[in-house]
């Protein structure tokens, strides 16, 4: 049982080193002078920018060799110190708490909405493959999946904010503001998860054990509830895990679009301002979230499917 946890912990360690090193190197090879960007981020671009940049370089030790700077970051990390933002000088951990908190809310809202929509449509479609529900489900899935999130987001904004004036087009703070960005993400997610759930349910309905449950004389609702849903859920849970990861990535774009102050927003700005500790911290937390999601999916799958426990 504990094997998978050990494997995931090892994965977390590897992710930390790789993500840290990559963000370090990638930021360095971006064109432009980092000290200059940071100075611009702090004081705004004015006439004395070159002087300010020189000061920044000296102050932050950006002139030291890259390897030294990386080892310093890694050493600090071992003491759970992610460092300070080069621009705001606030601890990276604080910035992340605020921004990750907001992102987590958005991601959770989107995932919850998508789970309410997707698998439910999937079960309806899968119980009667080729039926009306299935065909409508397929059409809907194709439309919402084909639409990039920014187009869908703009459409929702036009309809619900501009035409109907039900919801604010941008901002942050109340459930009303989270609804549109969450729905934008949720529709794209549900488009896919409904089809995965549909295929899974359709396969279960054809399985000999489903037929046998009927032959036992069980009422149809009992057959679906006791023998259909759990078996059909096994692949769907793995897929929802993948979606949760996609979501964290998607958040980067959607947050910027809706001016939502989350971790994706933070990452984009940190990159523009060459704020290395912020980039590293953000990327690291996102990487570790992937590992945590994978671990969660492992745990739920083990719980659902006793066959996996054999080898674990």
């Amino acid at each position: 049982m504990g094997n998978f946890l050990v494997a995931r912990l090892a994965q977390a360690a590897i992710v930390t080193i790789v993500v840290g090193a990559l963000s370090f190197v990638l930021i360095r090879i971006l064109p432009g002078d980092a000290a200059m960007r940071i100075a611009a981020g702090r004081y705004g671009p004015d006439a004395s920018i070159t002087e300010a940049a020189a000061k920044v370089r000296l102050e932050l030790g950006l002139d030291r060799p890259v390897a030294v700077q990386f080892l310093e970051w890694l050493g600090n990390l071992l003491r759970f110190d992610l460092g300070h933002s080069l621009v705001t000088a606030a601890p990276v951990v604080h910035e992340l708490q605020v921004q990750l908190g907001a992102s987590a809310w958005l991601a959770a809202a989107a995932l919850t909405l998508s789970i309410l929509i997707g698998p439910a449509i999937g079960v309806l479609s899968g119980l009667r493959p080729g039926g009306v529900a299935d065909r409508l489900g397929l059409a809907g899935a194709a439309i919402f999946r084909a639409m990039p999130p920014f187009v869908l987001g703009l459409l929702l904004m036009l309809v619900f904010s501009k035409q109907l004036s039900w919801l604010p087009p941008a901002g942050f703070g109340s459930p009303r503001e989270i609804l549109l960005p969450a729905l934008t993400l949720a529709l794209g997610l549900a488009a896919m998860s409904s089809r995965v759930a549909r295929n899974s349910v359709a396969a279960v309905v054809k399985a000999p054990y489903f037929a046998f449950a009927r032959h036992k004389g069980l009422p149809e609702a009992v057959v679906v509830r006791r023998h259909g849903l759990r078996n059909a859920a096994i692949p769907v849970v793995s897929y929802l895990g993948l979606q949760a990861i996609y979501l964290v990535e998607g958040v980067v774009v959607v947050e910027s679009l809706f001016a939502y102050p989350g971790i994706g927003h933070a990452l984009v700005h940190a990159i523009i301002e060459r704020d290395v500790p912020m980039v590293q911290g953000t990327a690291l937390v996102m990487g570790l979230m992937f590992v945590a999601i994978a671990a969660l999916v492992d745990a739920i799958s083990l719980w659902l499917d006793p066959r996996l426990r054999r080898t674990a």
Partner: protein
Amino acid sequence: MNVRTAIQELSVSGLAVESAAGRVVSDISFTIGRGRPLTLLGESGSGKSLVAQAIMGSLPPELRATGKVRLDGNDLLAGSRGVQRRLWGREISLLPQEPWLALDPTMRVQGQVAEVHRYVKGRDARRSRQLAAGNLGEVDLPGAGRLYPFQMSGGMAQRVAIAIAHAAGSDLLIADEPTKGLDAALRDSVTARLRQEVENGRLLLTITHDVAVARALGGMVGVMLNGELIECGPAERQLSAPTHDYSRALLAADPESWSRQAPTTPGGVVLAGYGLAKAFGEASLFADLNVEIRAGEIVAVVGPSGCGKTTLGNILLGLVKSDSGSVERRNDLPALRYQKLYQDPPSVFAPHQPIRKGLADLARLHGRSWNVVERLVSRLRLQSSLLDRLPGQISGGELQRFALVRALLLEPVFLFADEATSRLDPVSQREVVAFLLEIVRETGLGVLLVTHDRHLAERISNRVIDFAQ
């Protein structure tokens, strides 16, 4: 236990099954009484399973049953399908083929028995659990309730299915190929259990292609061919002195009645394993095993399921690593010259690719000419029109012969036949085995034959390695 009176008789008359294309089963009539079970024998595609489904009311929607199916005078076909479905788990129980697939893989067995009490009989949860434990005890599986189906043998799974029928308390049992894929020992335990159900007063209809099952069950035996019941009579007479040619062929195809026909004059060793051992976790399958296979000989490996027969073959082919010892090939011939014939032909062909395409690709990949393929195809008496069908559109016996063509195309010196005929009906099995023997004699192919059929092993092999000891 039941308040209502038990059903005395199932009477079927003029039963036919029709598809849009025409009749697939016609004019079936028989009667099953208490203490007098009926076994329908026939090859796959003979329509015997359709008869069971028509009585059960579980025919696929594109098929329609006509005629009369009376349970104590009640005509089951007179109402809609829903009427028949209401009898499931109450009057009629099905013993499924391959019960390890028919049990929910993710639910403990106890729950799968208890739900009949809970949801069909409407008892409360606690009482249902108690009764389910009792039902499992009746089939000698006390305490097995905590197991999942994957932790059980095929025979245990079939007994769970019988416990479920007990829970339903239904009087008519329909057993659809109840021993398919079971080895001889498990098969005998399942048939003994079915006999007991008959003695307890249940009506039993069994569908099988295994003559041994029909013999063990006794009662009446019917033989089906091309959707018709060509003969039906008491088991003793049917199984000793059948009148119809096909019935005779069916009986002759049972390996038990074959003559011994092992190949002669084996040549040099083509494949050998010395000091082989394999254990999975704590359980050791075999240790310090030596085996040599010579050109032109058939070495059979017999034993119950799960004893390591297939693992031995896979070790010799290099598909599984042995824990110790070594495997030696003659002159280090390439691995391609060592081939395997699998148990379930449909699962080793790409389902959406015509057979011709697969064989043509293989011939091209290995630089063989298409003429070689055609020679092999006609050699195994396969019509070349079959080449353009999909694997699902031809019979299991034909498909297994194509699998043999595919293996022979690579000019093997060794073939591992892993239960290669156990899923075929006796007539097809006999054909495939006959071809295999001819090829061994002609080409000096060395064969490792893994089977759970001791009679088959003894009739056609030079040596038998017995894993049961």
